[in-house]
């Protein structure tokens, strides 16, 4: 069992997301994260799903997804060299004084941006792969994370290769 990154090109129609998400639940596949947005083709959306399962299950996931009429293409890019990012917004308790300085120092180390400063909190925006965000989250926990929002992973192959070229 390992996380697989599945990229699904779908027609941008009502109900498409529930069809895709419903299929995962129904067949007992666990979605780790899901990110949806428009893409380079008009009228289409791309869904990036991270699914934790072994290779045979993933094969079944892909085949089942392909059966959905609104699904155009399903690509597992796990084993293709690819770049992957997610964004997290983290609201951290940061009383003026030493803890605020420490939080800001950590943010700097992770190349996170401070996008809001309140009387007792700061909001950090951090971009990176899942591991980097997990690491920052862990470090910030001691200061008190008030709220955390993550986008879910998005990914594409490196170089001139595109998702659509990938089987």
């Amino acid at each position: 069992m390992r996380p697989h990154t599945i990229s699904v090109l779908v027609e941008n129609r009502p109900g498409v997301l529930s069809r895709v998400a419903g299929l995962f639940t129904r067949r007992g596949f666990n979605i780790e994260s899901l990110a949806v947005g428009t893409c380079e083709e008009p009228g289409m959306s791309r869904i990036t799903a991270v699914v934790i399962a072994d290779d045979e299950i993933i094969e079944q996931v892909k085949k089942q997804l392909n059966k959905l009429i609104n699904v155009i293409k399903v690509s597992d890019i796990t084993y293709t060299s690819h770049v992957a990012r997610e964004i997290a917004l983290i609201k951290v308790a940061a009383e003026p004084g030493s803890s605020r300085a420490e939080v800001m120092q950590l943010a700097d180390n992770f190349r996170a941006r401070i996008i809001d400063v309140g009387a007792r909190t700061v909001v950090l925006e951090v971009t990176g792969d899942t591991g980097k965000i997990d690491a920052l989250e862990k470090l910030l926990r001691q200061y008190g994370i008030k709220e955390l929002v993550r986008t879910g992973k998005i990914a594409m192959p490196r170089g001139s290769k595109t998702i659509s070229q990938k089987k």
Partner: protein
Amino acid sequence: MKTGANILVESLVHEGVDTIFGYPGGTVLPIYDELFDSSLRHVLVRHEQAAVHAADGYARASGRVGVCLATSGPGACNLVTGIATAYMDSVPVVAITGQVPTTLLGNDAFQESDITGITLPITKHSYLLNNVSEVAKTVHEAFYIAGTGRMGPVLIDIPKDVQTDVMDEPVRVPETVTIRGYQPTVRGHPRQIEKAASMIAGAARPVLYVGGGVIASGGDAELLHLAENRMIPVTTTLMGLGAIPSHHPLNLGMLGMHGTESANYAVTECDLLIAVGARFDDRVTGKLESFAPNAQIIHIDIDPAEIGKNKAVDLPIVGDVRQILKEVNRKLTGEKCLSPWNERLAEWKRQSAERATVDSGLMTPQYIVQTLSGILDGAGIIVTEVGQNQMWAAQHFSFTRPRQWITSGGLGTMGYGFPAAIGASVACPDETVIDIAGDGSFQMNIQELATVAHYNIPVKVMVLNNQYLGMVRQWQELFYDRRYSYTEMPSVDFVGIARAYGVEGMCVTDPADVKDAIEASLAHDGPYVLDFRIEREENVMPMVPAGAAINEMILEDKK
């Protein structure tokens, strides 16, 4: 200037629909108003579940897409079981439902239910229409999706205002359908086909394991050619009955939980299993690790998602079963004569046949089905309910052709048979249509007696009445220490009920009367109910206990 309802009905006619099964209600009033003077025949059922089962029976008997119509809310929800039935058995059905007006959608309006949401996991595809301009194109697409590839039910949900809205421009129905995300593979991969041919040529103990896909694709002649040319024994699933005549010397009978000894032993001992349009269902395979343990497996199927789903296969071929079998036959030159394998199977077959002989001195269900089979002599369409009645019919009727056998295989829907028989009879009015029923299942859609009386649809219902939910009772007997928890059902006067609906009937208690009673029901011009009071604790044998390997069969009733 045409309304959505008008376009809908015209589109159905354009698709070649002659009959729809339905039940009116508030949100389909505009459609019913169009039907009032349309050329389309509408059969008014007495419960929406019967409408979808009838459409399903119509589709299975005829090979054409079946159509049903129901109103929003409860009407649509009553279709759910039937849609799931059609989905599990890959039957082409288009279900049309009314919906509350688009202005009320999502407001919990009167008789509103999110039927596209509810049926998402049990439809091949579904549509919720927003605009009258979508009606014609959607109907065309829906029929295409339902009736091609791995067939299945498609639902079209039409809000009432879309039915009444007027289309200003002329209605255009596209000649061809192209759907980017739906391009079923029809032709098998040539290299895979070549490999299959050489595997078949090299096998010493091959078996063909044949499912409903052979019937759906119309590939029975190609199957027979392959089997006869290479002397390959054939076993069919419940859904595959009729793909090869029951009496064909190469036919081993059904495999799986209630399969024959010959079929289950053959699969266990074969060195090559050729799965054709079948899906390795748990009722077929029993314990997966022990299913065809010594065999290489070729799997031919239209649906790539079935390949390797339950059982790893050595050679998959995705595409239309008929096309692929034709290609395989072309590659397999020469003939083969009887081998030691065939002789071995012949011995098992003889044993199975001996065990299947029945005592005509008792009211056994096996005797009744065999008597029916003898009278019909290869003709007729056999529809069943679900449970013991279904298995006795599967085991003891002699099938001669595809589409002669209509049963809810995957979902196992009690109450399916009677309405499905109505659909089959409407599709094939010249055929004798029999519903082999149990007293439990028949009561699940018994209200359709009103429908058969209303239209004089000549379905003959043969109730194998043991006053039990027999199959559940059988499991309780064998695996729950005879604790018959809530499976006994006190006697019901089915003949009295039939007569009250205006349908003729007869109760049969003496085995000597069985033949005459069946003949009388067949001679009767119209529907008929036969209430056979059978041996109450008769079991379906052989039986593979759940989770056991298929060669670990209970062969005989210990009673």
